[in-house]
């Protein structure tokens, strides 16, 4: 059993924990990894849910414990905080780029520019001639869209 750790080491290990529904995104990309503290041999990892009922949280919690356990850190506490509420503003630029590569339109940065421009960019053909089909999709965090240019449907990670 390893007891000594630094926050940087733990953060490096947790960089491999991904969202089970969108496996290209790590918990750090998503912005749900809020804090890591070490007190003696106890490592406390604090995460925040994206949506209230997100079923991925249980799996992410288990993955965090497992990945640290594999490396010899057994005394791990995963805490969940609700406040401040998660927002897609916390998603990293790297995370946004990975989503595009994966075929999901990333959340827009909030601000007057996006409001003016309206439509989303199609992750397949980059056309801006797109329309929302449904505010709800396969997971809480996504909505369903269609591109009028290439006719492909795509998911959008909702601005939240």
């Amino acid at each position, binding site marked *: 059993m390893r007891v000594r750790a630094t926050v940087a080491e733990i953060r490096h290990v947790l960089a491999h924990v991904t969202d089970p529904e969108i496996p290209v995104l790590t918990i750090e990309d998503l912005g749900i990894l809020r804090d890591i503290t070490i007190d003696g041999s106890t490592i406390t990892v604090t995460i925040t849910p994206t949506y*209230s*009922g997100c079923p991925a949280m249980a799996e992410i919690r288990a993955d965090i414990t497992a990945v640290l356990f594999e490396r010899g850190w057994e005394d791990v506490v995963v805490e969940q905080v*609700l*406040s401040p*509420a998660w927002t897609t503003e916390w998603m990293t630029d790297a995370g946004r780029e990975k989503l595009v590569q994966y075929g999901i339109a990333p959340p827009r940065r909030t601000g007057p520019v996006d409001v003016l421009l309206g439509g989303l960019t199609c992750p397949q053909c980059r056309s801006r001639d797109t329309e929302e*089909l*449904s505010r709800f*999709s396969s997971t809480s965090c996504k909505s369903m869209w269609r591109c009028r240019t290439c006719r492909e449907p795509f998911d959008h990670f909702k601005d939240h």
Partner: protein
Amino acid sequence: MSVAVYALRLGDDCLILGQRLSAWAARAPELEEDVALLNIALDHLGAARSLLTYAGSFTGQDEDQLAFLRDEREFTNALVMELDNGDFGTTMARQLVVSAYQVPLWEALTASQDELLAGVAGKAVKEATYHLDHAVSWVIRLGDGTEESHRRMQAGLDMVWPYAFELFETDGLVAELIASGIAAEPVALQRAWDSTVTRVISEATLSVPDTDWRPTGGRSGKHTEGFGYLLAEMQHLHRSHPGASW
């Protein structure tokens, strides 16, 4: 603790509405609606879990004990949450009535002196905004649609309407929690609610139901006939297999 009772009321509202909505799985008029209603149900379930866990922390009970091992008289949800789904129009009427209440409710509670309630509200308010948008677009589409959709949307609204007013009742507990900056002020909620639903009903070419009947009793555990059947379905697995988990 008063705040535990208040959290349980809010949690029961979310739990029971989530249970009702989830019965639309594979039964909605189109696939997108299956997905939408189930997403909304999941949001409610998520909020319910936080609220029930919090309420139970004052009495040494966990969320499962509260959800699955209480009997009918111990549930404190408002009656509107447990109403039968009816047809899609009735469900949309209920969604409009409840979402137009929950948006200002959660908005107000983000400023609650109770840290946990404020945290739950901070997440729920964003989700409730989606729920309201969804309900508003359907009520308008069906109300201002064909003769048949208009008739059924109005019938759904007439059915649900009287139950809305229980949401704005005040009792000693709510008054005490308002005084300490914990609870939301029902009068202000009703004002916001009234302005939303009146605007939507008018745009949907529907009429505000003309009735003074105001059924109530949910907060003190007096429920409608269908509630026992809802609990039987929701609780039977846990009661038949105590401690069952995935």
